């Protein structure tokens, strides 16, 4: 049997997405299952990301797998100049699966070609982070009951935000999605994604600020607007307070509407939103463990 990897969200089909949703729900009901007994999983974090690493390692532990690896390449041989190629070849001999994060884009795809064992991409620079997208989808499925007919508002940095791009691609596989983009012109959704939506006859609307239209939202997906992204600092000063979500803005929203955020947040969601029944971002993070248990068992073919 050919090995499976998860490098980009589009490596999975709609059937895979649905299977992951189903498995994540099973793991949520019963998180501890000995499916990876006697298996070794390598978690290779060439750049630190404590949040993602702990989520993956919790998932592996709950499946009774054993973990080898490193959490930061400065403590490993990588600093001594070993190539990614050689590190992956070596680890392939020791482990049954690799979970990796690396600052260079495309590193995970390359590793999957070099490795004889399955590779899961836990982030390759600004490129892909598919387990984040799957946990976002699980959060949508759980709170809305379905992945069909969802009106998603994406807010903030839609130009560089990889999480919104992947979520857009994945949700486009489902019935009748509607996308609303709220972003400053400098950080608008790139044309290639808009062209993609047009080619699939999927409706989308663009806005430069929050308006009453958020009353139609099923999901508001918030991202951070970072100062470094602006070529002109004056432009940043003009927009920096425009994309902050506050409790008073949520008055007319649907009772079932949920706010998601890939975390960590800075100031784009005001703390007064946290107590609102719409706030879902902390639960969303917990869903990450169940989703990653689902991804790992699906990739390893143990479920």
């Amino acid at each position, binding site marked *: 049997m050919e090995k499976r990897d998860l490098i*980009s969200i589009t490596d999975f089909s709609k059937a895979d997405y649905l299977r992951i949703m189903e498995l994540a729900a099973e793991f949520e009901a019963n998180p501890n299952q000995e499916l990876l007994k006697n298996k070794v999983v390598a978690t290779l974090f060439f750049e630190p990301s404590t949040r993602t690493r702990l989520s993956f390692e919790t998932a592996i532990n709950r499946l009774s797998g054993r973990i080898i690896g490193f959490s930061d390449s400065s403590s490993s041989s990588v600093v001594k100049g070993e*190539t*990614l*190629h050689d590190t992956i070849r070596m680890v392939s001999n020791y482990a049954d699966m690799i979970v990796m994060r*690396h*600052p*260079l*884009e*495309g*590193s995970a*795809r*390359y590793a999957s070609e070099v490795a004889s064992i399955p590779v899961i991409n836990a982030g*390759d*620079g*600004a*490129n*892909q982070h598919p387990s984040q997208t799957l946990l976002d989808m699980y959060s949508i499925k759980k709170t809305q009951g379905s992945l069909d007919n969802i009106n998603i508002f994406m807010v903030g940095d839609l130009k560089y935000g990889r999480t919104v791009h992947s979520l857009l691609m994945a949700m486009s596989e489902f019935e009748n999605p509607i996308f609303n983009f709220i972003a400053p012109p400098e950080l608008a959704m790139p044309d*290639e994604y808009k062209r993609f939506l047009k080619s699939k006859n999927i409706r989308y609307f663009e806005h430069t600020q929050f308006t009453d239209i958020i009353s139609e939202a099923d999901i508001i997906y918030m991202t951070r607007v970072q100062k470094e992204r602006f070529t002109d600092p004056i432009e940043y000063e003009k927009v920096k307070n425009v994309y902050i979500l506050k409790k008073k803005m949520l008055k007319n929203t649907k009772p079932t509407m949920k706010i998601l955020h890939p975390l960590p947040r800075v100031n784009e969601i005001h703390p007064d939103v946290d107590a609102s029944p719409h706030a879902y971002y902390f639960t969303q993070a917990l869903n990450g463990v169940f989703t990653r248990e689902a991804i790992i068992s699906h990739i390893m073919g143990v479920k």
Partner: protein
Amino acid sequence: MDNRALQVSAIKEGTVIDHIPAERLFDVINILGLFNSLEMITFGTNLDSKQLGKKGIIKVANRFFQGEEIDKIALIAPHAKLNIIKDYEVIEKRVVETPSEIVSIVKCFNPKCITNHEKIKTRFSVVSNKPIELKCRYCEKITYENQIEIV
């Protein structure tokens, strides 16, 4: 010398590459390694062209390009036409065609792409022909026609 004379005269056997954008003429010479060639080569540039405004043209004696060489020409001169000359006659006119996958010819424009940091064959799928847009198999970023750099 008029355009027509330059295109077909004084070459017994070989290839005339016509309709090269004037500004990419030397790139074509480079990627085909013609500066090392011992064959007779003539080229002209800034010739009037209805299609391109200004065009370049290269005549190479005793060379018949194929496979990867034609892929390379297609990448930087997508409108190029190859006139195959035998015994002073044009026996065949070929339009270049952009292949659907480009392997190890082009450099990924993304400085943070793994292919610019380790010895890896680059691989692109051609997502658009005119203008050319190449999607990197690794970083998934698009290299646009004006960013194409040959490795």
